[in-house]
Every structure is written in structure tokens, then in C-alpha cells.
């Protein structure tokens, strides 16, 4: 076993020790007001946590997945660029071209846009007919 593998075991162990120390040394006096969800000025309703949320977050995560896999496939090229000379460069450029075309398509479809009321008010005021990337 090397230092690195011990480090990988030691660090979670350290954080759990800290949590255990807190559990041992802290008082434990829960009551209903203290445990309920934080809300300013009224009691929180039931089940507000499990309501709808904007689909944009999911779309951002999906696009992140695609681009992360693209970068993952670039890692071997980056350490062997000299070995592959110009042929490898052309292959990599074609790869990036295909993915960039996909990126331009989804930029055009406004997939990365979060609808905000502030921006909508601004557009109606300035009377823009055509919003491209905004």
C-alpha cells in the first residue's frame, strides 16, 4: 500500500471523526420550532421541497455530460500530440468541428437560456425583434 492509498482512506476517516466529535460534544434538545424548515415570518408549508423546478438545470447538466465526455476523449491526444504529428491534429480538428456544430445548433435553439423576468421586461422596453444570443 502506498501513501496515496492511505491518504484516500485517511481523509474520509478524518471527516467522520469530526462529525463524531460534534455528535458527542453537542447538546441535543430538539423541539418542533427548531427543527422545522427556515421561513421568514410564517410557518413553512408541507412538501414545498418536492415541487417543480426549472428544466434548464437538467439541460445544463446534460450539456455538461456531453462536453465532459468530449474533453475526456481529448486527454490521450494531449499527451501524445508530438507522436501523432499533423495527422493527429487533423483528426482532432475534425472531432472538434463536429462537436462545435452541435454546440452552435443548441445555442441557436436557446437551450442555454434561462428565462428571467428581468430580461423579458428589458426586451419589451427596447422592442427588439430578433434576439440571437442573449
Amino acid at each position: 500500500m502506498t501513501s496515496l492509498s492511505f491518504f484516500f482512506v485517511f481523509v474520509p476517516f478524518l471527516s467522520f471523526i469530526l462529525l463524531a466529535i460534534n455528535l458527542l460534544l453537542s447538546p441535543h434538545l430538539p423541539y418542533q420550532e427548531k427543527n422545522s424548515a427556515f421561513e421568514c415570518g410564517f410557518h413553512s408549508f408541507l412538501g414545498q421541497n418536492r415541487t417543480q423546478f426549472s428544466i434548464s438545470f437538467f439541460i445544463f447538466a446534460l450539456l455538461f455530460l456531453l462536453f465532459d465526455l468530449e474533453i475526456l476523449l481529448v486527454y490521450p491526444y494531449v499527451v501524445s500530440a508530438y507522436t501523432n504529428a499533423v495527422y493527429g491534429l487533423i483528426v482532432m480538428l475534425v472531432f472538434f468541428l463536429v462537436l462545435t456544430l452541435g454546440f452552435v445548433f443548441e445555442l441557436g435553439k436557446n437551450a442555454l437560456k434561462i428565462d428571467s423576468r428581468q430580461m423579458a421586461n428589458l426586451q419589451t422596453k427596447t422592442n427588439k425583434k430578433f434576439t440571437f444570443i442573449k
Partner: protein
Amino acid sequence: MIIDTTEVQDINSFSRLESLKEVYGIIGMFLPILTLVLGITIGVLVIVWLEREISAGIQQRIGPEYAGPLGILQALADGTKLIFKENLFPSRGDTRLFSIGPSIAVISILLSYSVIPFSYHLVLSDLNIGVFLWIAISSIAPIGLLMSGYGSNNKYSFLGGLRAAAQSISYEIPLTLCVLSISLLSNSSSTVDIVEAQSKYGFWGWNLWRQPIGFFVFLISSLAECERLPFDLPEAEEELVAGYQTEYSGIKFGLFYVASYLNLLVSSLFVTVLYLGGWNISIPYIFVPELFEINKVGRVFGTTIGIFITLAKTYLFLFISITTRWTLPRLRIDQLLNLGWKFLLPISLGNLLLTTSFQLLSL
């Protein structure tokens, strides 16, 4: 025959000399880990104190001055207070996710300290894929943020967790593309190799001059990854109360607090390793490296000079990020995500392609 020789070896290993060697081996394995963890802890204490003093200086007030001389022990006092606070579990929240969330955020950041070279041969593990390990492990942190946001039964925490995770993953791609450009220039993913590739011409050998656009993008992306102002939205007090940290108390809140500063420290260390030349003295032609014997193993003076130089460069970047915090206003979430996807991603992609083209077509 084989059974005889192994039995003889086993008996020999129980003799005093062999068991002493094993004990020394085990101590030699634990000592770097303990030194590193001690160094990181002291580093975090210093950063917390530095942030409060510099913020106080910028805002023209006096910072902490009661805990220890000049307020040095303030971070320790805060940590001790948090240990004694009650451990609240929100009602109807998911208890397991709530407890594990902050631990995952801290663990993923602490594990990336193992590939940073503080001086020649002062790295916990000189992996061939050092920077890849950092990027891969720090990608686990958004999972911890999502767990914390969902496990507190609070819509503000949930939204804050979603926003924090979206911000983290959006800025990882420009960060990774900049790191890839540096790997290309140094022809290796090992952090020690990247530092040694910058050691030739002193000041002018830094990757900062070879990759100015990459430096700019890396600076912005690492500030966004650390969730520091101007990318502070997950902790925005006006909108989300305290984001995903709202329902936390006790040492779990302390873990989030420490995770933020650990992330800042590891980003600063990576800026010095990748762009500012690591542990090399950067004055060209005056101090020849052999004069201070930096690249020879076991020279104590040389290695302490290396540590000192690494830390000096790191604290320069820390000072820049702390003063940026009190200089720029906060970005809105859609401005933030626009900056990451529509500005930094094309620029860093173009930077990578330009770098490969220049490296290969000019030979």
C-alpha cells in the same frame, strides 16, 4: 522446495531486523500524509485570518484582534465553537443525504492535495496523470452540494443547491480545457513535469507568457469553482437566505466553511504550479539553479527555498482573489451561466486548438 523457502522467509521476517524495517516502512508511509494534513490545516487557518484582515483593511475597519495576538487564533476559535453547537436535523428531510453532503464536498477537495508539488520530491504521489486526478476528483463536489440542498427540507436550500451545482459544472469545462492546453505544452499530465518544463529561463519560462488567454480563463473559472464573489450566488443572502447551507449547524457548517477555503487554497496552488512556475526561483540569469541546489534530492536548504517560493506565489493569487471579492458586484445566475457557456467555453476551446496548431505546425 518452494514451501521450504517461503517458510524460511516467514521465520526470517519475524526476527528483529526485518520487523523494524517494516515498522520504518509503515512510518514512512504515514509521515508524508500527516505532514500534508498538518500543512493544509495551518494553511487554512492562515487563509481565514488573512481573508478577515485583508477584508478589514479594504473596508477600513479593524479585523479580529481578541483571539490570540493580532487575532491569529480566530479560525481555531470559530472551529471550536462550531464543534459545541447543536447538530440539528431538519424535520422530514433526508437524514442520510443531509449528513453526507458536506463530507463529500470536503473529501473531494482534500483528496486533490495529493498531487501538488511543494518542492522537488515533496509531492505525496508523483502520478503520471496528476492533473487528471485533480479534475476528476473535484468533479465529485457538485454531488455533495446537490445532496445538501435536497436533504434539507427547504425550498431555498433546494434551489441554492441546484444553482451551485449548475455553476460548478458549467465552469469545469473551461477549467479543464485550460489545463489540457498546459498539458499539451509540457507534453505530460504530471504536475512535477509541468513545473520542470517551466524551469529553463527563469521568469520568462512561465506558462503565463505562453498561455495568457488560458491564464485569464483559468483565473475566472477557478474563482467560479470556489464560489467566491463575483460568483457568490449560492450563498446570496438577499435571494436564497444562505443557499444550500441554510439548515446546517455545528461542524457540518464548519465543514462547508472549511471546504470553501480548502478549494481556494488548492486553486491557488494549481495556479502557481500550472502557470507561475511552481517551486523554481524565477529570477533569470542571476540565480543559477545549481547555486541553490534545488533539483538535488535531500538538500534541505534547497527544498525549503522551494516551499517558500511556492507559498509566496500562492499567497499572491490568494491576495488577488480576496481583493476581487470586495471589488466586483455579484453576477445573476443567468449572467453567470452565460459567461461560462457562451464566453469562456469558446475562448478556451479556441485556445486549445490554437496551442495545438502552433505547437505542431511550427516544427
